[in-house]
């Protein structure tokens, strides 16, 4: 009877209840969305690189090095000499060393020069290795391996020819149009920036820059592919190195050795440590977003409270009647509370439902635009805590109108 009374009373005030419900639903949606994306972004960033013990680059900030080498965000400050790479790779503690070179692009996607062991050693997530969806790694100078998003978005498959452009802008005018590359392989999706990268060999990067001086193509003396393949395409420098060590114990030792190198100013970072530094910076943004979401929620709650408060004036006769048939004053208190709870729970279900649907719809966009794979499964432990928090907050705020109803019932007539 109690629940039925609350329900019918809400239905009787459809107009204001529906508007309040919408405000609550939107605020719940925003709150859960911020929390979910925050959580997913952290998950994804953390799983972008694994199995790499050290990242080495020119001396710069550790965050900068991490961002440009792993996330392809920002630009490298300087390169590392090929000799330094050789020296580090020959260190007895180093199991494997993968050089990477950045700086070119293809239709907005970054091109990364590397060596074949990259496909063997680089791993992401929980030690997942890269796998080929089609074809295999590059063998020739002008071969290219595509990340899954690059292939999907641009509609490439193995055997296609593509032209790289110099620099990073998607509408670059300086094209390496004299040297088309052939797609030899396409990687399986990883949910990391690898999906948006074109992988070529270091030799390929060297080859397309023959006859270039200071970033400008020199006219004339065009070489044929045969001529190029005759040349010894030894890179002079690379952008960064990824190192795997024989023993984890040696990490700090090798790191110190590299950081103290006198030959060239180098910086070695532990990806995990740099990631946690990244979190600390992201935290400010995250917390700001969360704060805004919470404020939106509080505004909706106050709206709910105001709606219930004004409904009590309109329900004075009803309150008096309930008192006359013997309802204790507390009954009125709980009646308002249960009405609040109903609105909150319905808006929680609606908000979560809309979030799940919109995530499912926006998934492709988020991946292609931000490289952010967001799962549409919003059921998590933290979401449950948020739901409980939302319910608790609405109970607290409903104390105001509930007390009003209670005192009306007390002094009735």
């Amino acid at each position, binding site marked *: *009877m*109690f629940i*039925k*009374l609350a329900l*019918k*009373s809400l*239905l*009787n005030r459809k107009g204001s209840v529906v508007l309040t419900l919408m405000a609550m639903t939107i605020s719940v949606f925003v709150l859960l969305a911020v929390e979910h994306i925050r959580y997913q972004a952290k998950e994804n960033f953390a799983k972008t690189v694994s199995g790499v013990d050290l990242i080495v680059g020119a001396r710069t900030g550790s965050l900068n090095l991490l961002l440009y080498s792993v996330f392809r965000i920002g630009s490298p400050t300087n390169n590392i000499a090929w000799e330094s790479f050789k020296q580090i790779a020959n260190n007895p503690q180093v199991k494997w060393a993968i050089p990477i070179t950045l700086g070119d692009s293809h239709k907005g996607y970054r091109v990364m020069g590397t060596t074949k062991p990259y496909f063997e050693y680089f791993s992401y997530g929980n030690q997942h290795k890269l796998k080929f969806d089609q074809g295999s790694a590059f063998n020739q100078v002008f071969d290219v391996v595509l990340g899954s998003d690059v292939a999907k978005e641009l509609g490439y498959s193995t055997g296609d020819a593509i032209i790289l452009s110099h620099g990073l802008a998607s509408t670059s005018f300086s094209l390496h149009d004299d040297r088309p590359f052939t797609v030899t392989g396409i990687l399986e999706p990883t949910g990391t920036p690898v999906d948006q990268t074109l992988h070529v060999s270091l030799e390929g990067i060297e080859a397309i820059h023959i006859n270039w001086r200071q970033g400008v193509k020199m006219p004339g003396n065009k070489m044929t592919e045969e001529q190029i393949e005759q040349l010894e395409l030894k890179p002079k420098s690379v952008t960064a190195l990824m190192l795997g060590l024989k023993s984890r114990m040696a990490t700090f030792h090798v790191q110190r050795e590299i950081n103290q190198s006198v030959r060239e100013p180098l910086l070695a970072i532990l990806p995990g440590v740099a990631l946690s530094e990244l979190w600390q910076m992201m935290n400010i943004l995250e917390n700001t977003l969360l704060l805004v979401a919470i404020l939106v929620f509080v505004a909706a709650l106050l709206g709910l409270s105001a709606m219930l408060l004004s409904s009590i004036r309109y329900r004075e*006769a*009803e309150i*008096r*009647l*309930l*008192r*006359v*048939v*013997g*309802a*204790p*004053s507390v*009954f009125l208190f709980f009646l308002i509370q249960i009405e609040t709870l109903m609105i909150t729970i319905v808006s929680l279900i609606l908000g979560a439902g809309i979030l799940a649907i919109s995530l499912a719809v926006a998934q492709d966009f988020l991946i292609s635009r931000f490289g952010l794979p967001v799962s549409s499964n919003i059921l998590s432990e933290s979401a449950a805590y948020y739901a409980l928090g939302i319910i608790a907050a609405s109970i607290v705020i409903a104390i105001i109108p509930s007390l009003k109803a209670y005192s009306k019932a007390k002094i*009735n*007539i």
Partner: protein
Amino acid sequence: MSISLKNVYFTYPDAPHRPVLNIPCWTVAPQEQVFVHGPSGGGKSTLLNLLSGMLVPSQEGQGGQGEVSILGKRLDKMSQRQLDRFRANHIGYVFQQLNLIPYLSSVENILLATYFSAHKKARVKSADVEKLLTKLNISPDDWSKQIAKLSTGQQQRVAIARALINKPELLIADEPTSSLDQDNRDNFMSVLVSLVAENKITLVFVSHDKSLSRYFNRIDALSDISCLSGARGCS
């Protein structure tokens, strides 16, 4: 005695020096049907609220707090919770208007009244509700209609059903006919009087409309009950 008031004095807290009621002595015998008439704003509703325990007498009566004794129980000695329970179990109440919750049906309104009278809840069956509604000339088509969709005459009759469902010993009616037209008023009064007699209920009926006094054998003027000018003894 069904009702026995002694030295009952009442002022509202916002006007403590203007007494609304001052009743030296007033009694109603069991099964008596009393018509109390008086001008609007004369304290009729206050009297009824004192009888139902919604209000308690003020402290400054002659000889301390007055006595409100209903069905042999001292309301002025009960806790709030006991009063709520007592009201649900023993007293039926019909107002001038807004007797029913507008968004519930007749049946739901009547069952709501049984919800708070704990010991009678189990005994009330929907058959009882239907019997009562039939007696009150409410057609079965209207039983599950929202109250707001019924006519005023029907609403007041459903209000009687709601007031009587818990089989109260005392029925209080506060100008229940003032929103009804002549035909509905006669219909309402005859149904009310016959049901009250049939169920052996004590009735206190207040109205400013003296034409209704023909349905009653005891007629009291509020000005005789409540003596604001000076004290009178209990005769």
